[in-house]
Structure formats: C-alpha cells, structure tokens
C-alpha cells in the first residue's frame, strides 16, 4: 500500500490493451495488401507506386507514431488518488477531467479482466458511486494484486474503518471470503437450452420450416443463417458470462465471480441491493431452477449497455437451496420466524382455490405473516378479479415481513420480488377504469433503475390502501434504524476489527 494521498498512475501497458483494436486495425490496413502480394509471388509494389514507397512508409509510420504517442499521453495524464474519504481520478491532457467519488457512497465495486488483460496479469477496477452521476469510476488497468489491494482499501474505508494512525501506510488486509455456492457448467448449458430465447428459437425454426414447405421456396433457409449466427453469438455471450459462476460472502459483502475468457469479480457491499427478483421461466420448472436479479444503484437497467444484464444477475441459474442461501445473504434478517416457508410460498405458492383470504376483511399486514397460514401469509387478489386474471389471481399477491416486502406474481412465469423496507424510494397506487370496476388497485414501489420493477398486481382496494399506509410507515421505521452509509458504523462499536466483524457486517445494511 502506497502512502495515503499519493497520486498514482495506472499500468503503462493499459492504453495498449485498451487500444489494441486500433493498433490491429492499422496493422491490418497496411499489412494485408503486402501479405497477399507476397503469397501470390508478385512484386511488393506496383510499378506506378514504387516511386512513392518512402511516402507511404512515412505516412504509415506517422499514423502509428501518433497512435502510440496518444496512448502514452493518455497514460501519463491519467492519475488517481485515494485520500480523505474520496477517490479522485484525473484524465485528459487537452480537456482535463477530474472525477471524484465519495467512498462511503460506494454501491458496488468490480474487478474486470478482459482476456488480453488477463494474459498480462492486469485488471480493471470499476466502482459505482451513488453521487457520481450515471457512469462508473473506472481505473484501467492495474496489476491484479494492486487492484485487489485497492479494492480492499476502498471497501474498508467505505465500511468506516479508519487507517491505523500509527502506521498510515500499512496495508489493509483483504477481507476473507467463504464460497457459498457455484453453478456447474452442465446446469448453465441446460438453463440456456431451456431458456425463453430457446423457446422462441424452436418456434421460429418450426415456423420457417412450415413456411418453406408451404411456399416451396428453398431459398428461405438462407435467411436463417444470419439469425442462427446471431443466436449462436447470444448463447456464447451468455455462456461466456455465466461460466464458472461463484458466489462468496466476505465482510465486505457478496462477491460474485464469473466468466470463461473475460472474468469479472463483483463485490456488493451489505445493504446495497435495492430490490431483488427471483424468476422461473416455464421450462425451468422441470428441474426446479431459478434465476435471481438485483437492482443496485449505478448498475442501471439491462438495456443501458451490454454488460448490464450480467452485472445485475445475482444467480444465473440455481436450485431452490441456492436461492434460499442467496436470499439469506442479501437479507440476513428476514424479519419472520419461518423464512423458509414464507419464501417458498412466494416462489411456488398458490392461494387456496376457494379464495379464503379474498374479499373478506383486509388481512393483518403488520407484524409479519400469520403463523399457520398454508400460503405463507400472502395476501392475494380477491376472488372478484377471476375474470380479469383467471390464472394469476391465486398467485398475484404480497406479504410483508418485518424487514422486507415480498411480491409474488405469475402462474407460468413465476416471479418473486423482494424489496427491503429501508430501500423503498417512493410508492404509488394506480387504478384504471377496469380496475375500479373490480375494486382493485396496483401498488408500484419505486427503486433505482434495474431489471426489477416491483408492482403488486390487482390487490383488493382495501388491502392495497392498508398496504400503502403500512408500507409507508414500515419504510419510515426502517430508515430510522439505518443510521449510516458505513455498514460497520451501523453496528454497535464493539470490535472495530475488520476481520472479526464479519457477522455484524452481514447482518446490518
């Protein structure tokens, strides 16, 4: 660990690793013609060009020189510093830019290693800060050990650990981690084959075969080739991203590692997960697989860039036990005496066919689900909406524990959304004319951008109104309990030791 506050540079090789595509393009542009001529045994230059060889060489050399010079300048003027609770990154030599990020606002921190960087033992450090606008602060590239060290430092500061005043330069130990689960490659392949997109692939294949048989147009198959290539690329991307997925827990938070060629290690500090979704496409039901996705401030929606979808995935595919384990990491205090039953009801449960808790008085929303309820305390849509949602009626519902709101929906595409109470930003009740006719309303919880958009569908009007009030009160209470962004500081200051605070670190957020 370097002394605090010193300005540092990233690894000198980094611009070449980032710009290798440009270099390769230049090489390709100038090299291809020469190479072809050599192969064909022709002279390197046509007669008419031979007089201009020096110019051509000089031109090519100049372009190359400029590119390399640009790389060196970018490298020289990119500097970073970790000091006084901030990370500052300076870039640019013509247009200077300084970005600074508050450490206690770190939402997530990733170490990304593209294939080329991995070969050279380098890594990119990327962190999302809630107050730094939309884009992440990134440092590319550092030596992998330095990147790990910096991550440990940033996380320790973010957790509220101050550097030892007697030895300010001492390296902070990296927090130990314990592997919680991993996804075997066979299951990943199976999940891809049974995913929704495979369903549409099969549908498209059948449709095209039928069409070509009907129209007797053989050339129809040719249109399928680009589609097949695109699909193969999509499958490959999913496989490459999801390969060797491992989740681990450390005092710094949840660590996710994955990737075949490009590897990525994400760290989600405790309490940074704004909302969570467990979903199950219809075909996954055969093997009892689930997928988990999260909203984290700064990660953004899946559409914002290509990497979004994999970064917001908490578990690409897992069995029920994996889901429960991840839930226990994300929500260490489930706020109910019987979490297994409540969450299982949220994942697969159905209200009794008769609709015993529908249409009657509002179910008790406070104090957690009622013990002994076969449906885990979920309040589902009233019986009167059976014309609106004949399938989903017994499934769509919500349950509130002391720490989180659980929203389940979907009979075929099963979904369970979990929103911790202290993470609710705002809420809205919605009611259209048809819903008013049936005396139901939707409750939408607003969270940060991401793949999860919590919505209680078609709750009975009285239940929805009671939930609206109760949820506002619960969110208020939860916010009062949560006093600090620094997750170790939220715990009573018992052991200010990074290593031993592991349990507390997990339980509060």
């Amino acid at each position, binding site marked *: 660990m370097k002394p605090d506050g010193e300005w540092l540079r990233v690894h000198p090789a980094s611009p070449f690793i980032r710009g290798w595509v440009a270099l390769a393009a230049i090489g390709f542009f100038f090299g291809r013609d020469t190479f072809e001529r050599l192969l064909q045994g022709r002279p390197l230059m046509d007669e008419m060009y031979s007089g201009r060889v020096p110019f051509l060489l000089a031109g090519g050399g100049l372009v190359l020189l400029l590119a390399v010079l640009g790389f060196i300048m970018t490298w020289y003027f990119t500097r970073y510093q970790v000091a006084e609770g901030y990370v500052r990154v300076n870039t640019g030599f013509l247009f200077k830019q300084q970005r600074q990020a508050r450490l206690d606002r770190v939402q997530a921190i990733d170490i990304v290693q593209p294939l080329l960087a991995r070969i050279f033992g380098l890594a990119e450090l990327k962190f999302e800060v809630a107050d730094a606008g939309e884009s992440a602060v990134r440092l590319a590239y550092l030596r992998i050990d330095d990147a790990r060290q910096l991550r440990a430092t940033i996380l320790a500061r973010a957790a509220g650990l101050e550097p030892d005043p007697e030895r300010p330069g001492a390296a902070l130990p990296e927090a130990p981690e314990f592997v919680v689960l991993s996804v075997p490659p066979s299951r990943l392949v199976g999940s891809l084959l049974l995913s929704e997109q495979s369903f549409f692939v099969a549908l498209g294949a059948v449709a095209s075969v039928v069409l070509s048989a009907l129209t007797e147009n053989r050339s129809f198959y040719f249109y399928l080739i680009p589609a097949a290539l695109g699909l193969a690329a999509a499958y490959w991307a999913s496989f490459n991203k999801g390969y060797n997925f491992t989740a681990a827990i450390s005092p710094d938070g949840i660590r996710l590692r994955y990737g075949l060629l490009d590897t990525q290690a994400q760290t989600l500090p405790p309490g*940074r997960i704004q909302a969570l979704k467990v979903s199950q496409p219809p075909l996954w039901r055969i093997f009892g697989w689930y997928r988990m996705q999260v909203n984290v401030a700064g990660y953004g929606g899946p559409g914002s860039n290509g990497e979004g979808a994999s970064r917001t995935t908490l578990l690409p595919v897992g069995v029920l036990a994996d889901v429960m384990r991840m839930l226990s990491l994300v929500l260490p205090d489930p706020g109910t005496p019987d979490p297994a039953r409540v969450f299982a009801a949220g994942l697969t449960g159905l209200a009794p066919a008769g609709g015993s808790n529908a249409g009657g008085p509002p179910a008790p929303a406070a104090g957690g689900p009622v013990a002994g309820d076969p449906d885990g305390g979920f309040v589902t849509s009233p019986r009167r909406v059976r014309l609106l949602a004949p399938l989903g009626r017994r499934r769509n519902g919500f349950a509130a524990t002391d720490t989180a709101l659980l929203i389940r929906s979907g009979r075929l595409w099963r979904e369970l959304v979990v929103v911790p109470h202290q993470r609710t*930003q*705002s809420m809205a*009740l919605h*009611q259209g004319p048809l819903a008013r006719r049936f005396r139901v309303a939707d409750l939408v919880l607003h969270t940060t951008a991401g793949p999860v958009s919590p919505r209680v569908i078609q709750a009975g*009007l009285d239940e*929805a109104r009671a939930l609206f*009030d109760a949820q*506002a009160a619960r969110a208020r209470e939860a916010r009062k309990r949560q006093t600090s962004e620094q997750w170790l500081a939220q715990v009573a200051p018992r052991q200010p030791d990074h290593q031993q605070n592991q349990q507390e670190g997990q339980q509060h957020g």
Partner: protein
Amino acid sequence: MPTEAIDPPGISWLRVSPKYVTVRLVEWAFGNLIAVALLSLPLVFTLAGWWDWVPLWLAITVPAFMLVLAVWRLLLIPRQVRAIGYAERDDDLLIRGGIFFQRTLVVPYGRMQYVDIGVGPVERSLGLCTLKLHTASAGTNAEIPGLPADEGARLREQLSARGAARLAGL
C-alpha cells in the same frame, strides 16, 4: 361507475390553482388542434378536387374521429386539474392525480434528492410554476403542476428543510 378514491381516507388535499386550466388549454390547443388541422388536409384537398384517390368517407371519418377525441380531452381538462392534489404529512408528501387512471404517490421527505421548480412561458404569464421532486429512482416522477409561484417557493423551502432533517442514504 363507482368513483371510490384510491387514496388513504382522512387526508385533506391541497388543490392546485384553477388557473392551471389555462395552461392545459394552451397545451391542448397546440397538440390537438394542429393534429386535427393536419388530418383535415386530405378532406380539403378532396373537396377542392385536387385529390381523387381518397374516398370521401375516409377523409371525413379520420379528422372527425380526432375532433371528437380532442373535444373529449378538452372537456376533461377542468376535471383533471381539479383531481390534482397534494398533501404534506409529517414524514412524506402525497400527490394524487387522474380521473380514469388514478394515481396516488407518496414520497418520503428523507428520500428526496433535490427539488426542482420549472416555469414555462404560459405558466409565467399566469404566475404559476411546476414543482418536481427527484429521488434516487427514475420511476418516482413526482410533479405538482400549476402551483402559484409563492406557494411553489414555500413548498420548495419546506420540502428542502424537511428533507435535510430526515435525509437518509440510498
């Protein structure tokens, strides 16, 4: 149709200025009248005999349909403006709106990141303003249009003070 409100009972809503109807009328005129005028062009052309490929019934039906829609929207405007309401509670702000598609929104003071006041040209001439609240969620979309300028300023100060007192992290 039963018109039972979806908001929690026992809340005294503050209404926005009735002058906001004028703002909505201007917006309505810009949007709908231009659309109707554009869609009437084929009718004019057909009647003038420049075009003969458009069937007359179609040239009449389309703009007529748009006109009916526009008039319908026009008639709704006063009711829609009356439906907008807000209420300051101890810990959060409630905003409601809509007649057919009702929405009741609650924004906790501690969740507000910043408060915006926007004034358009029509609003300025009427002494109105639009207050907008931002939280960490893009879905919040909390807007109170048509506030008198001094009420908007008061509300902004009030909300900022309350937000600062209850500010929580994400």
